[in-house]
């Protein structure tokens, strides 16, 4: 039956079929409602794997210990025992291959994160011995006088 009424209908059907085909191609196969129903469930489960693949940059002190046992032992019996190596030495990443040497942060600001004196009585900060960097030997690196791996010892000169 040829009619001007039917022809637009074919076009509509074609468009619908096109949308369905495109949808099939674009929407990932595992996309759907998870266990939590319509309100919370819509997602692509394989994305979890994508997040697990993110590269670990900070490898923790246990990784550093494998080669630098002496440094590990020194800091672990000092008042700085709980400070992780990577807080000051930077993330290990692929060290020692890449990067070969780590960038050690010797800035006064780094030490002042904890040791800028703030007398906050209801916080742990108030119990930490601190200084005012403006008046306490300005311009000098802290490690000139204080040895960070064990603050009870004298510092070193580079």
């Amino acid at each position, binding site marked *: 039956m040829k009619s001007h009424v039917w022809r637009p209908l074919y076009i509509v059907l074609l468009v619908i079929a096109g949308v369905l085909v495109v949808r099939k191609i674009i929407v990932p196969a595992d*996309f759907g409602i*998870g*266990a*939590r129903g319509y*309100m*919370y*469930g*819509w*997602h*692509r489960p394989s*994305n*979890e794997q*994508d*997040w*697990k*693949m*993110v*590269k*670990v*940059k*900070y490898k*923790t002190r246990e990784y550093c210990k494998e080669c630098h046992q002496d440094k590990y032992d020194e800091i672990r019996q000092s008042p*700085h025992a*709980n*400070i*992780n190596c*990577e*807080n000051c030495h930077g*993330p290990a990443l692929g060290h020692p291959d890449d990067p070969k040497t780590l960038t050690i942060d010797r800035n006064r*600001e780094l030490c*002042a*994160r*904890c040791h*800028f004196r*703030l*007398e*906050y*009585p*209801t*916080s*742990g*900060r108030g119990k*930490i011995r601190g200084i005012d*960097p403006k008046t306490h030997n300005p311009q000098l690196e802290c490690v000139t006088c204080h040895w960070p791996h064990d603050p009870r010892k004298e510092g070193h000169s580079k």
Partner: protein
Amino acid sequence: MISRRSFCKKSLLIAGGLAVPLAALELFDPKRLLAEKEDGNKVRWVFLVDTHKCVGCGFCVKGCKTENEVPYDANVTRTWVERYAVTKDGKTHIDSPKGARDGFETTKFDIGEGKFEDVKNEDIDKAFFVPKLCNQCDNPPCVQVCPVGATYQTADGVVLVDRTWCIGCGYCIMGCPYGVRFFHPVYHVAEKCNFCYHRISKGMKTECVDACAFGARRIGNIKDPNDPVTKIIMTERVNVLKEEYGTKPQVFYLGLTKEVR
């Protein structure tokens, strides 16, 4: 012919029989009941923050930004530390410059627009630091509002964002009552704390927990009764943020006060 006696008897029997719900006749399988109660998952990540221990050094923020590739100098961060000072005149001062990425190395409070207000030590009644991060809510409003299904909750309770699927509409950023979400300046999608999913799924701790030298941040599995974090949550006086929103947040705080919002 039905007698009056048997009519009463039978009608009582039928009425009584109808009153017993079908569910009462069901035979229960104890294993199935246990599985339903436990929802089958052995892991549910939770976080514990001890505000007494936090000193505001900001190593957690620094570490998080590097570990999770959040642009270091952009003023966005997955976790941050707030400084609170309640002074004798009853005022509460709050600041978190750059999310405390560089710690707090001044007594002055950042009040925005490049202005600072000095809060003198002798005026302070109480002052403390509160680390904030995603609460990985059991009823996550950010997941509920996503129109495309780009954000979702894993079986172990962590809310993730599918970067390939997010259209960047920003509903979730507006929907989060904790202000945890932001636009990733590089990927142009919604970004949030995911408890370092790549680390906790390898048996490591989150970077902020590892970076904290004071034990102010801890992560644990609330489904494991022997987990030290679970023990503290179960036995000590912990609180959560904005409980009234009904989001069931899973970051627990020791030492919260009403000034903390």
